[in-house]
């Protein structure tokens, strides 16, 4: 009985931890891709110096579209 309860608690804690990890991973994937007229592509990922300058209006745009 105790073992069963411990297992259930373990599964619940593991699921919660997994969900948090996945959420953090998804957040860290935030990035902006810029395509220029000479055919070049620049990717600005989270953590790059200018990333927040671009990600902030992008989030505003998404929030505005969703009301």
């Amino acid at each position, binding site marked *: 009985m105790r073992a069963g309860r411990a297992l259930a608690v373990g599964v619940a804690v593991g699921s919660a931890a997994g969900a948090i990890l996945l959420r953090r991973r998804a957040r860290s994937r935030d990035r902006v891709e810029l395509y220029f007229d000479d055919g070049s592509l620049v990717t600005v990922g989270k953590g790059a110096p200018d990333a927040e300058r671009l990600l902030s209006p992008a989030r505003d*745009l*998404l929030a505005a579209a969703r009301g």
Partner: protein
Amino acid sequence: MAQTADALAHLTEISSQIDAAVVLDKEGTVVAATVDDERAGRMAGAALELFRRADEQREQELVQLDAALESGSVFVVRDADRLIAATTRSEPTVGLVFYDLKSCLRSLAEAPTEKPKPKRAPAKRRTTTPRSRTAPRKKKDESG
């Protein structure tokens, strides 16, 4: 304006990935949108800000961008006169969304500019008499 709205309606019809879209001019004025005016204004402001900041990144001209965020993606594409901004769910087919947005802008560029047609005055009714009933014309006297 009506043609732009039609083009946007067509865009959301053919592209199931696009949730909302707005067409704006280079000053940020909304030309048409799939959302209400208030949201369209906020979308246009954010899209213009994002595009301007991104354009400062390099000397080359920026033509399009996409931002992948936790809860969805945003796209901005420009042509000579306008910008189109759109939002999608998470992890869309990026190439397909860009293709649809460019097609929309192209259709707007190709659309003839709307000019109100001048109203034509109603044709005057002529009362003509069949020739057979008219008297034969007299030849002009060329002697004189």
